[in-house]
């Protein structure tokens, strides 16, 4: 026997699905609100521009902010050429062969590796084997490696979404494959590629585990002067002041979390802006 008519079932389904989708928003809002609420009072000019004082309980977090900015740049430098190169290969050159399958398998596996394992790998590979030491260089390479899967898959998708007609036309006037990629495919794929890079960066830069053994310092009296120096960084700093420092004022912890959150949010915001700006310029 039918309790509800088809139309009624339809209404119930719509209601339930909308409710579930709305539920997703709640934790995001709560996290952001809680961190703003508890952290706002810590934010001051001094907090952003001064080094920590008095066993980190006073002063600011400037060295950690600077370190995170440096690591972001380093990660970008490490991940962008490799990521875009691999994406071009996969989208434009790869045949259906063993090499291609191996590369794809490798990327899938890279994406699935826990971040602490990246940290250990970075320690073994970059810190010890290549003897970069615990350094910005080792940390950037480790984070870069971790960012690769996102960069590659979003860039490949962006490249594949460039209309085939552009390639065809380019070939038909006598352009080579590389010229076609360089002058038609990449410019048109650029918004998508940039978005992928920034999203990958904002993801990686909030991680603690990969930098734990490769670059992060508990406390440094001086700022780094070369890529072979250690640096403080926001996520590790947050971890340290939340677990290792007795008597740490709660608002300093939340203030640090808020700065980290704002940093990654603004990266996402920049990505969105770049994408929509470039979308507006190119239409098909």
């Amino acid at each position, binding site marked *: 026997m039918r309790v509800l008519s088809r139309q009624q079932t339809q209404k119930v389904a719509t209601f339930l699905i909308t409710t579930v989708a709305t539920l997703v928003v709640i934790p995001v809002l709560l996290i952001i609100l809680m961190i703003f609420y508890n952290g706002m009072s810590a934010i001051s000019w001094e907090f952003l521009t001064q080094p920590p004082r008095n066993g980190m309980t006073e002063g600011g977090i400037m060295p950690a902010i600077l370190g995170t900015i440096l690591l972001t740049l380093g990660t970008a430098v490490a991940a962008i050429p490799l990521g875009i190169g691999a994406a071009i290969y996969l989208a434009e050159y790869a045949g259906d062969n063993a090499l291609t399958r191996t590369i794809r398998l490798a990327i899938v596996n890279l994406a699935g590796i826990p971040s602490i394992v990246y940290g250990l790998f970075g320690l073994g590979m970059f810190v010890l084997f290549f003897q970069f030491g615990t350094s910005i260089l080792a940390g950037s390479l480790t984070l870069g490696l971790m960012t690769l899967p996102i960069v590659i898959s979003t860039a490949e998708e962006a490249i594949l979404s460039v209309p085939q007609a552009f390639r065809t036309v380019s070939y038909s006037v006598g352009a*080579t494959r590389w*010229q076609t990629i360089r002058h038609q495919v990449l410019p048109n794929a650029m918004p998508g590629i940039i978005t992928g890079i920034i999203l990958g960066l904002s993801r990686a830069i909030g991680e603690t585990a990969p930098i734990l053994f490769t670059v992060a310092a508990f406390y440094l009296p001086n700022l780094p002067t070369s890529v072979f120096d250690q640096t403080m960084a926001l996520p590790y700093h947050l971890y340290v002041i939340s677990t290792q420092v007795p008597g740490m004022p709660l608002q300093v912890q939340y203030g640090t979390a808020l700065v980290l959150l704002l940093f990654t949010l603004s990266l996402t915001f920049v990505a969105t802006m770049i994408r929509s700006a470039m979308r507006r310029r190119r239409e098909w």
Partner: protein
Amino acid sequence: MDNKLEIQNFSFYYGQFQALINLNLPIRRNQITALIGPSGCGKSTFLRALNRMNDTIKGARAEGQVLLDGKNIYDPDVDVVQLRQRVGMVFQRPNPFPQSIYNNVAYGPRVLGLAGGNGRLDEIVEQSLRDAALWEDVKDRLEGPAQALNPGQQQRLCIARTIAVKPEVVLMDEPCSALDPVATLKIEELMQQLAADYTIVIVTHSMEQAARASHWTGFFWLGELVEYGRTPDLFTNPEKELTEAYITGRQG
């Protein structure tokens, strides 16, 4: 009669499927050759075979010869990139790049390094747009987006882009199928002028267009060339019954 292209015993396969069956025909220099026939009979395949745009299709295979000025374009020593400069192509849907009008026309000369200085590039762009009967429409907005042009202008822009690299042969695959009658007539007029400098092969689904605008016509049916001849002869006095049935609308 002077042949720009000679197609000899030419067959083409998509994997197991034979799309073109032992074709033999000439393409006359500085003349317009129209290819007609029902959809799916292999016209586009044939056209793409003339500048080897089919090469990238998986499992595709050509047999026989296509002689361009006496040289088989399927010989292993032929540089396909160079071939495509010599044998250009205009496509069914107007497909300008999402860039400025100027950059659309300049693209080919740039990648081929045809223009020495920038002044020379300006000249090539202007001449190509003039030859494509588009200069007067766009001379004041060369930096404007190509997408802002109407479909007929876009298609003439695509023609300008093609002739900017100074090809010898221009292949057109149903270039007017997305255009209104006025824009269509304009393209047909343009073809007549271009024929002075280029050898033109046009695929068309419109028999009126073939009859109006071409010197020679080939009629394709299921991958075979049924009949080839001077356009007036083929339309007024076809040799084959199938041709007559098709052009009078009894078949196809």
